[in-house]
């Protein structure tokens, strides 16, 4: 009976662990060949480590229970050398060679050239994303989201505007740090359609915990449409509320920090808001982009995200606030 319960538990455990190790930000829930390769390496290492741990514990238990009068096993130096020196060297040599082959496979001459490049700068506490043309010039700037064409190799140039951050989309690739004075390049190839969550992995002070982003992989035609839309200036508001929102935005000095292409607002301190309404989140992965969340953010961003650099704007209230949020939401 006990055995039966144990067996059932043993069968259920891997499933539970498997379920646990998935989700929008799990490296084991792979969306690219690279992440899949690492996931396989991971599972093999977990299995091997599990076996070794059980073997060591079993040996220790057997050793502790061995009666002293019996002929003793494992008490000679040679045994220690075999188990403690030779065995690890053999195992580790194999593991090292395999690990190195995965390390070496990620880049190098054999991989196809990048379809295009994206520059991502980490800033306290958001991501400035700039899509680059073939000549390296900026096509457009967005924030806290990347979109990629499925199956194409994209190179992401990682930099920092202030402190060290780390760019990490577990579903697609390992992390790579963003370090002032350095440009680190991370190749990404999304293997299937989907959306993955990424998050800053290097402690960057203050709101480090609230510095996330999303990466969405699209079929090529959808991706081309998205690129074209992003490159276009902001749409003219088609209703009075939108026009009122835009006027408030421009009159209240929001443009000192934010750019909205197609309007006089051209600040570069904060995120480019030209198509903010089309982004999945605001506040760097903090909240879904909706009229209500936008309004709450404008009035008191520091309440939602402590130490955020944007000052609160309690001056916006009632109709004004609704109009402003409505206009921003319409910028898709």
């Amino acid at each position, binding site marked *: 009976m006990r055995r039966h319960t144990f067996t059932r538990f043993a069968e259920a455990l891997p499933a539970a662990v498997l379920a646990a190790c998935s989700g929008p930000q799990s490296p084991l829930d792979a969306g690219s060949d690279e992440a899949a390769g690492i996931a396989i390496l991971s599972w093999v290492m977990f299995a091997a480590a599990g076996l070794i741990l059980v073997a060591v514990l079993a040996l220790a238990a057997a050793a502790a229970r061995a009666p002293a009068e019996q002929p003793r096993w494992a008490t000679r130096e040679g045994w220690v050398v075999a188990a403690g020196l030779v065995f690890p060297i053999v195992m580790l040599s194999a593991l090292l*060679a395999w690990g190195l082959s995965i390390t070496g496979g990620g*880049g190098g001459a054999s991989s196809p050239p990048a379809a295009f490049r994206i520059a991502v700068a980490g800033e306290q506490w958001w991501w400035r994303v700039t899509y680059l043309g073939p000549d390296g010039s900026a096509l457009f700037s967005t924030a806290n989201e990347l979109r990629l064409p499925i199956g194409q190799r994209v190179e992401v140039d990682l930099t920092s505007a202030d402190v060290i951050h780390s760019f990490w989309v577990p579903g697609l690739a390992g992390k790579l740090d963003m370090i002032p004075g350095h440009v680190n390049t991370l190749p990404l190839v999304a293997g299937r359609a989907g959306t993955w969550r990424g998050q800053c992995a290097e402690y960057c002070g203050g709101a480090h915990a609230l510095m996330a982003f999303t990466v969405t992989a699209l079929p090529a035609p959808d991706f081309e449409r998205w690129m074209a839309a992003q490159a276009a200036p902001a749409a003219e508001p088609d209703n009075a509320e939108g026009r009122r929102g835009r006027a408030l935005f421009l009159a209240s000095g929001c443009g000192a920090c934010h750019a909205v292409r197609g309007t006089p607002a051209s600040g570069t301190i904060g995120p480019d808001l030209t198509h903010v309404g089309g982004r999945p989140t605001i506040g760097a992965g903090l909240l879904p982009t909706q009229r209500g969340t936008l309004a709450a953010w404008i009035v008191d961003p520091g309440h939602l995200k402590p130490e955020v650099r944007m000052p609160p704007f309690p001056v916006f209230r009632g109709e004004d606030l609704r109009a402003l949020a409505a206009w921003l939401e319409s910028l898709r």
Partner: protein
Amino acid sequence: MAETDRRFFSGLLRIGAGPALWAAHLGLVYGVTAVACARGAGGVAAPTVVGLTLAAALGAGWIVGRELRRARAGPAGTRTSFFAAALAGLSLVAILWAGLPVVFVSACP
């Protein structure tokens, strides 16, 4: 310096020879790769690493051989020989491991 202190330091040198070789190898391959990549001369990294690894491995192997011979020659200082040989042996493994990446990994990103 007293005779016993002299023996202490000569023993220290023999025991430390293998690990010192390993440390020098690691420092050199790391330094060469860092400078070569920073100066856009990634091509020189791999051959240099291979050469350094072979040289260091030969050196560590030689120390193992010498200390084993010494250990066989007489009981005096067998313990020093054991430590010197075993550490050089472990260093030899570590040197070969450190050289292994050249086979799989290209020098600079």
